[in-house]
Structures are given as C-alpha cells and as structure tokens.
C-alpha cells in the first residue's frame, strides 16, 4: 500500500484497508470450513449405518492427552506471535518450536491410534462405512495438521537463520490464523467422532 502515500487532491486523510494476507487466509478458512462441513455431515449421516463391525463403541478410545497437546499449541503459537511483535526473537523461537513439538505429538497420537485400529481391530478404510467415514474425516484433519507443521517448520528454519523479525510479524500472524483454524476443526471432529458418534 506504499503507492498510496503520494498525497493527491481530495485524498481521504486516513485510507487504510485490511492486510491482504489476513483477508486471503480468512477466505481460505471459509472455504476449508465448507469442505470439513461436508465430511462432518457425511460422518453424522452414516453413524450407525454400517452393515458389519467393528463399531465406534467397540474400538474407539478418546485421545484426551493428544487433544490437550493440539489445543494447547494454539496458546503457544499465539504467545509466540506476541513475542515476535515485541521483538523478543528468542522467546518467539522457543515457543514456535514448542508449537511444532505439540503438533508433532498429536500426529504421533493419530498414528498410534490408526496402527491399533488397523492391526488389532481390523478396521480399515474399506472395512465398513464407519471405517470409510472415520479415516476420511480424521485423515482430512491430519492432512491439514501435517500441512501446517510443514509451514511452521519452514518459518522455524528461517527463524533459526535469523530471517524472521518484527517486520515479518504480520505474516507470521497469517500462519497462526491457519493453525488456530486447524485446532478449532479438531474440536468439531473430536465432538463428532468421539462424543456424538459413539
């Protein structure tokens, strides 16, 4: 928006528009929400409609620890952003790293759960409707967590190389917006799969 600083006749005194990165991310979140909504609707529509086992009640275990990990990573990324805004790069980097570790733990938890479901209970994506909808919905979310982790790691690498400073903080904010969205989606997925779906 630097071009607008040239003073022209009749220019409104303060012409300030929202940052395009935030607007773009907000739009992406709206679009992603619609995708998740369709998968959630499919999950709820097919609850209890599987013709064969295993059923959710038999095999699902509520992943409380890993849920706490993911949700608390929203806090760490928020404060990481705040520290960056104030120029405290060391605190930013350590909280950023903690966010990645918490996200990674969550992914490890998902991997554990899938391994158990597949090898102990024989629940695969083609086993029954529950398997199809469960792996699709949880997998879609896990894909978004993975994509988020990749982007967070890129920022971490640039940060360790000393390239992330106060002037990048509005861009880092855009990424944390995405991470908050991924966490919020988990609240919905958790409620649907582990609470309502059993």
């Amino acid at each position, binding site marked *: 928006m630097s071009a607008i600083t040239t003073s022209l006749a*009749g220019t409104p005194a303060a012409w300030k528009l929202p940052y395009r990165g935030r*607007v773009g991310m907000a*739009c992406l979140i*709206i*679009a992603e929400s*619609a*995708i998740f909504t369709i998968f959630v609707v*499919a999950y709820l529509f097919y609850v209890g409609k599987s013709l064969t086992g295993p059923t959710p009640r038999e095999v699902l275990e509520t992943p409380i620890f890993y849920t706490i990990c993911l949700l608390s990573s929203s806090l760490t990324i928020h404060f990481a952003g705040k520290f960056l805004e104030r120029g405290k790069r060391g605190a930013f980097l350590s909280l950023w790293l903690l966010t990645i570790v918490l996200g990674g733990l969550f992914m490890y938890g998902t991997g554990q759960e899938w391994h158990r479901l597949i090898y102990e209970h024989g629940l695969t994506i*083609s086993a029954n409707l529950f398997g199809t*909808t469960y792996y699709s919905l949880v997998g879609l979310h896990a894909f978004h967590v993975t994509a988020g982790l990749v982007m967070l790691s890129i920022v971490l690498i640039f940060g360790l190389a000393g390239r992330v400073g106060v002037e990048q903080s509005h861009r880092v904010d855009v990424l944390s917006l995405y991470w908050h969205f991924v966490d919020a989606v988990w609240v919905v997925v958790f409620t649907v799969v582990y609470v309502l779906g059993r």
Partner: protein
Amino acid sequence: MSPDVMAIQSADAAGRSWTEVLHEWVTTVDHKRLGVLYILYALFFLVIGGIEATIIRIQLMRPHNDFVSPQVFNRMFTMHGTTMIFFVAMPVLFGFANYLVPLMIGARDMAFPRLNAFSFWLTAFGGVLLYFSLLGGSGLYGAGNAPDVGWWAYAPLTSRAFSPGHSSDYWTIALLASGFGSIGTAINIIATIISMRCPGMKLSRMPLLAWLNLVMSGMVLLAITPLSAAQLMLLVDRYLGGHFFDTQAGGSASLWMHFFWIFGHPEVYILILPCFAFMSEIIPVFSRKPIFGYPVMVGASVCIAFVSMSVWAHHMFTVGMGSYANSFFTITTLAVGVPTGIKIFNWIGTIWGGKIDFKVPMLFSLGFLIQFLIAGLTGVMLGSAAFASQLSLSYFVVAHFHYVIVGGILFALFGAFYYWYPKITGRMLNESLGKLHFWLFLIGFHLTFDLMHIPGLLGMPRRIYTYEPGRGWETLNLLVTIGTFVQGIATLVFVANLVISYFKGAKAGNDPWDAWTLEWSTSSPPPAYNFASIPTVASRRPLWDLKHPEDPDSRYE
C-alpha cells in the same frame, strides 16, 4: 495516453523472438495477461463444447438416426456439459473478473499475483486432464474412453462396477484441479476488492461489477468446496475401496445427489452474477443514465447469494424426499425470483427515459434482459414441486437451463466482449459484423431453444440417443438442429470479427464509449502498471466527475 507510456510499450514490442513472447505469456503474473489467457482458453473450449453439442443435435435430428453410437452419445453429453460449465463459463467469467476488477477499483494488480497464475494453470491443466481421458481413459480394462456418466455423475454410475477403466477418474480429478483453481481465484478476487481499492473507493462507491464479483467469489468459497469434498469421497470410493456412495454396504446414492447439487445450484448463480455485473455496467453507459437503484442492486445480489444456498434440492423433487422437504425447497426456489425480479426492474428503470444507443453491446444486453426473464419464468414453473414431477428429466428442463445459460449468460458475455474488446486490444470490434452476429445468433437461439420446450412438454426425455417416429417430435427436433447450425455460423462470424478487428479494427482510444468507470481512464490496452499514478475517487462515476467538473456526482453523495 501519456508519452512515457507510449515509449515503454514501443520498446517492449520491438525485436523479440516468438519464444521470448511465449515465455513471457507462460510465466506472466500480470492480471491483464492472465485474464486474456483465461478468456482465450475458454474460447478454445467453447468451440470444442460447441462441436459436441452439434454432434448431439445431428444424432437427434431424425428418429432412428445412427450418426453416433449410444456409447459415444453418452460421452458427448457428459463432455459437453462438463466442458461448458467448468472449462468455458467459469474461466471466461474469471478472465473478465481478473482483467477488470483491479482496473475498476484503481489497483495495479490483484492481491496475490502468483496465486493468480497458479490458479489459472490449475484450471488449464484440469481441462487438459479431462480431454486426455480420450487417450488414457480406457485403462487396463479396455473400457470406454471419455467419461460417460453425465455431468452430475450420479452414484452408482461412477462405482467401479459400472464405470470400469479410468474415465470417471479423469473426470473427478479434472474437476478437483479446476475447483482448487477456482477457489484460489475467488480468494484472490475477494482480497483484491477488500484490500487493494484506491483512495476514496469506498464499498458504497465501488462499480457494481466489482460488487457482484465480490459476491460471486464468496459463493465460490462456499459452493465449489462441497463439490471438491464430494470428489475426494468419490476418489476414496474408487481407489481405496470406501463405501460413501456404495449402496451395497449401506452407503447412500442420494447423498451424492445432495452434495452435487449443494454445489450445482449455487453454481448457476456463480455464473449469472458476473453477467448481472456486465449488464449493470453496459446498460447505464448505453442509456446515458447512471444505474437505477445502486444500493438495492447490491442488496439484491447479496440476497440472491444467500437464498440460492438453500434451494439445491429442487433438482431432486422426484427422488422422494417427502412433502415437507419438497415444500421447503419449492418456497426457497420461488423466493429467489424476488431479488432477481428487483434487478430486472432496476435495469428497466435505468433504460427508462434514457437516450438509448443501440450499439452491439446494448443489443446483446436487451436480448439478455428479455431472454433471462423468460428463462426465469420457466424456472419458476420448474421450481414448483408439483410441476417438476411431471417434467423432470424431460427436454423442457434442458430447454430451461439452456435458456439461462445461452440466452442469459452467453448473451451477456457477448455484450461484454463487444464492450471491453477495445480496452483489451486497443481496437474496436466491427459494428456491422457485430450486428450480423447478434441477429443470426438471436434467430438461431430462438429456433433451437424456444422449440425445445415443446418436445419436452410432449414427453421427450433428456439423454436419449434416439427416439421412435410418430410421436410428434420429428419436425421439432429437425428445426432445433437447424437452429444449432445457425448459432454455429453466428459464432464463426463472431470469431472472424475478433480476428479481423484485432488487425484491421478502428483505433479505440482510451474511452470509446464515453463511459464512467476507472478502466476507461487509462490507455487501451492498459500499460503493465495500469495507472501511472494511483487514482483517487470521490463518487461512483469518477470519469463523469473528471469530464464534468462543473456538475460532479460527488456533489450529490
């Protein structure tokens, strides 16, 4: 055109080999070039989709015709529908949005130029994938090549058992790729309009074209994504053995219908809103009056977007959803008629008492107004569950939606081509060839699509590859096919006009129509940076203010 602009352009044009030019176009991130790429790409597929339509019509010209086999007929109507919606209508409208929105809001480019290029190439490769199915679709099974499941691809037609080989996969992945392209462009248009407006360009002063593209992009975010989600589910079913749409394992075929039409119906409005945008720019300029009821036009557009999100199941009245669902979707469908009617009244209000200039863009706009009204009336008929139960899956439905898409969308698009061609190329389209194009196309259109309603009322089902003689359909079908050829000839006249005028057309100058929006304040074609200095606006018609300093619009706002 200022002298420095001239100098930069002539330096640009001199002494470059064609490989350099090609490289520039392939790697471009300029919103104007991407807009032109979108439009050219869509025109190419318009010709292909038109050829497919012609094949369909030749086959149906007389009873027991054997111009193509039933299998090829199925592929033709599938490819025709998919091509026309996803690879003609969407890209051409995105092309105009890309080209015009930054110019009209006084910006130098879109908010995310590289995302813009990425979105275009995603869409482009989507189209290539769809047509690659002609070569790669048979797969290991030796099954048919191009997709043949219809453009809505109802389950279980797309299951492995009924669609062996890879043709349905090419269809799915092509739509997935172009869908992500559309979402990228929609995000870009919204971010551009929210964050890149020039000083003084408040939302309440924005040209209606920008407003309508903003609403359209919002709809893309909410309506294209369900289709992408459903395509992902279909891929899970086809490749990973999932059961989403597998009725043998408890899955539901009607869930696919719901997901498809949650996309499919808003899609119609995604296509028509940019056409409303063209009308709202062209009609005032050729009536020499400002648009009538600007705030109401904006409100009606937002209202259409909202209501159209809850009408999808009117495509499913014969599925057996029950009387409550049928009543709900009948009411919402009829409700869309209200804001749409408001828009038609406002355009008439703009023309009323104006000094009408019957140039080609205005002729197409008037054609649009009348034909879109008729299309809306048959829409209201089909929106009623009782009536739709009688005529669902008949040629009446085919006639209705082609009336919307050809009589409405295509006429508006032709108007837009004649109106903005001078800005894009710097030369005017030939007026006499334009009039010939208009009248030929008008005759061909009405011959084809007016008459097509009647076999539908007489009970002719859609998607049949042939029919028995003696049912009273023969003459009508023959005339419908003749109308197709008239439209084909008219389109050739249009293409000839585009090519001839590019080389021999009269120089346009900056502002050939004496218009009022910002794109006409820069040179034709605009320089890469659009505006030498970012403009400042004080009213809805900045160029009027500039031309009439003694009586500017800003005085009344």
